[in-house]
Structures are given as C-alpha cells and as structure tokens.
C-alpha cells in the first residue's frame, strides 16, 4: 500500500514541483549562457550607458534568480507542509484515514515524495548557483576552470580517506537536514491538532517552539560533544596540527544529532496521528 500511496502523492504534486524546479533550472541556464557570452563584458564596459544597462541587467537577473531560489526552497517546503495538513487533518483526512493503510504508511508516503523533491530541488539549486557564480566570476574576475581544478586537487592532497569522510558526512548532513525539515513541519502540524481551536495557529506556534527547543538541545549536545572530542587535550589549539579530523568529528556528531531529531519528530507525528487523531 505504501507504493500506491507514494504513487498517488507523486501524481498530485509533480506538476507544481516540476514548475518550480524548471524555473530555477531555466534561470540558471540563462545566467550561464549570458555570463559566457563573448561580448557581454565589451557591451557593458564600453560606455556609460552600457555600464548602467549592465548594472540594471545584473541586478534584475540577481533579484529574479534569488526569488526563484526562495520560491523553490521555502515554497516547496511550505507546499508539502500544506499538503500534509490538508490531506490528513482537514476534510480530506476523512478519506485518507479511512483507507486500509497504517498511519506509518500515510506519513512516509507524504515524506518520501517531499524528500525526493527537496533532494531534486537542492541539487538543482546547488548546481545552478555554483554554475552561475562561476560564470559570473569568470566574466568579471577572469577565473579559469584550471584554477578551480587546482583548488579541488589541493583538497585531495589532504588524503583520499580524509576527503571521503568529509564527502560522506557532508551528504549525510545534507540528507538529514532535508528529512529533518520535513519531519519538523509534520510534527509541528500534528502537535497543533491537539489544540481545541485555532489549530493552524497552534501548529505555527508549535513549529517555532520545536525550533527553539531543538536549537537549545543541539547547542548543548554540540558543546558537550566538542568537549568529548577534545578529550584530554587542554584546548582546541592542540588540534591545530590536525584540524580536519576535529571538524570531521564535529560533523559526525552533527549528522548523528540530525537523524536522532528526525526520529523524534517522526515519533511525535506518528503517536499523535495514531492515538490522538480527532477530526472535528
């Protein structure tokens, strides 16, 4: 049944999500093409009018591009929060909660689709932004691809093991952050349903409450783990000879913490949906 739920959720959400992702992708391609145009610098630097036009074009493009990025990152998250709320806690919940499926399947079907789209969106944003920025710096500062490759080689000189650990931890933290964002919203929406009135407002309040609570816990755990990682050493400066491994340890703790928080938010959501569901 999970597969069927995911399939229907995908069918219901792919159009709007494709549109948002396509907008960022197209704007990125426009930026890359524009900044790679041979005569762009000549055109904008040739005269006062050209410079004014250049400022106008750069600022307009930047504004639209940033807005499209915001629409994709914040908009897609909000879109999946709203879908979760409407499908499971409003009138549509009368259908979804009377399907022969478990609450776990309902939650995961929503989460899987949201996570896939967030991953696609994040990849498009990362590739798009870095390509546009590279093209821009190449145009204005004369960056060359060889310099980028040299910088990457320098990183690899630190050792393949080191790089592998960083890449794996980076992916884990990135993935964990995406999953956490989704489940934090789901948990807040579910907590909001416990209120007798103004459930949407209660959900928003719960979101900020969760955010603050989680930030405090994260800070405490991070501080504590830094002390543990430092171990018997007197201070962080003792790690200056191997700062990379110190940060790798720090990243590992962050990754573990994110996944623990994901689990906590998921459990809150599931428990409320299973034991405290009250569609009124």
């Amino acid at each position: 049944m999970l597969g069927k739920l995911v399939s229907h959720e995908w069918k219901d959400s792919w159009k709007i999500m494709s549109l948002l992702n396509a907008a960022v992708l197209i704007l990125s391609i426009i930026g890359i093409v524009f900044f790679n145009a041979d005569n762009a610098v000549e055109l904008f630097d040739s005269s006062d009018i050209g410079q004014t036009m250049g400022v106008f074009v750069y600022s307009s493009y930047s504004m639209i591009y940033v807005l499209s990025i915001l629409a994709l990152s914040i908009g897609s998250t909000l879109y999946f929060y709203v879908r979760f709320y409407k499908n499971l806690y409003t009138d549509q919940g009368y259908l979804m909660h009377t399907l022969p499926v478990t609450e776990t399947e309902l939650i995961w079907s929503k989460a899987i689709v949201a996570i896939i789209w967030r991953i696609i969106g994040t990849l498009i944003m990362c590739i798009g932004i870095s390509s546009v920025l590279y093209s821009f710096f190449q145009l204005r500062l004369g960056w060359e691809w060889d310099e980028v490759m040299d910088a990457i080689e320098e990183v690899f000189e630190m050792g393949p093991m080191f790089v592998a650990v960083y890449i794996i931890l980076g992916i884990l933290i990135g993935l964990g952050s995406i999953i956490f964002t989704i489940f934090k919203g789901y948990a807040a929406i579910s907590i909001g349903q416990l209120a007798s009135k103004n459930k949407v407002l209660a959900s928003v309040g719960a979101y900020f409450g969760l955010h603050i609570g989680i930030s405090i816990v994260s800070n405490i755990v991070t501080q504590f783990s830094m002390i543990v990682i430092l171990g018997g050493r007197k201070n962080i400066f003792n790690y200056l000879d191997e700062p990379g491994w110190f940060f790798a340890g720090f990243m590992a703790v962050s990754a573990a913490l994110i996944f623990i928080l994901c689990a906590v938010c998921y459990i809150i959501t599931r428990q409320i949906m299973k034991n405290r569901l009250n569609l009124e």
Partner: protein
Amino acid sequence: MSTIVECRNLTKCYNSRIPAVTGINLTIESGRIIGLLGPNGSGKTTIIKMMNGLLQPTKGEVLIDGEEPGIHTRSVVSYLPERTYLEAQKTVADIIDFFDDFYVDFRPDRALQMIDSLGIDYNARLKTLSKGAKEKVQLILVMSRDAKLYILDEPIAGVDPAARDYIIRTIINNYNRDASVLISTHLITDIEDVLDEVIFLKQGHLVLRATVDEIKEKYGVSVDKHFREVFAC
C-alpha cells in the same frame, strides 16, 4: 447473523468535558438497515467518527467485525461522511482509480455505470461539479464497494427531494445484501420505508432501540411521528 458493530460503554467528551456521547452500549447485526436518528447535536456523527477511527473514545470501546478501528475495519467499512472529502482538483476518473487502488472490494464497473447514468463527465474535475453532483459522486463511490458495513452520515441532508430519491435508490440497489447499513439522519420520512431498525439518540444517550415494526405496533404511529413525540421541544 453475525455481529458487525459492538460499542461498549462508548463515551466521548470534547474539551469542554461535557460528554457528546455517554455510555453507549450497542450491537449491530449484519444484514440490517438501521437508522441512527436524533436531532442535531445528539451525538450521531460523533459515534460514527469513533466507528471509523476518526475520533478517539474518551472511555469505552468500539469494535467493528471484532476489531478496534484499524486496517481491517477500514477494509470492511464503506463510509460516507457528512462533508465533501475529495480533492477538488481531481477528476472523477482520478477518484475512481484511487478507490480501485486501495479498496479490494471496490467495483469500478458499477461506479462507472452509475456515473454514466447521471450524465456526469468522467473527465470533469470535481471543482467544476455542482454540490449535488459532488455528493452523488461520493455516494456512488461508497456504494460501489462490497463492504460488510456501510456507514452513511446524513446522506440526504441538504439536497432536494428528487436527489433524495436518487440517493435512497442508489443505497438500496447497490448495497451488499449480507452487509449492514447504518444511516444517520434527522429526515426520517424519506428513509423510513427502507429501515429495518432505528436507534434514537438524545443528548448523547441511546434512548430507544427498536425495529420499525415494533414502533408501529407498540405506539401505533410511524417512526417519524414517534420521533417527533420523543424529541418534541
């Protein structure tokens, strides 16, 4: 006849702590059409929601086909809520596919036949349909299942007399004969003829459980007339 619904001391209090439903003890056998009757606020919808697992009882329990509301009960209960629960953006075809995917007892051919007989466009989005047409589509979906229990919450409220006739005909012509049908309403005259039994609810209490014939014999009046006497203001 086997028991399809069993409520034991079923109680629901909302936040005000004033009970909406108090100590309901009730069994429903299969193969019966039962009217759950009571004025607005008598607890009909609350009981129905608890049967469907949409509300959690404050006290007591409800068993459907011997089990608490869960996957099994959802697979044997066909439920029509008193509101539109379908996504407005979806087409009639999307919704039929959806039901076909999740309910093994759903009969898409039966649903399509009824949709056709109403002249509703299969590819029309629900948001383009009138309120009455949407309610009929929802009823058709619910009645196109071969369920063990049909729970219909106010199926004829807010529709014109012609539509009421259509709805009642649809229910009678399509329900699984081995199943039970629980119909909640306060419009008794329209459905009295199809009911085997009635349950009267008053302020969350069960005040009467009798067959239609028993009421006629004992009180010498129709169910509607007796209802008016019991609930006279």
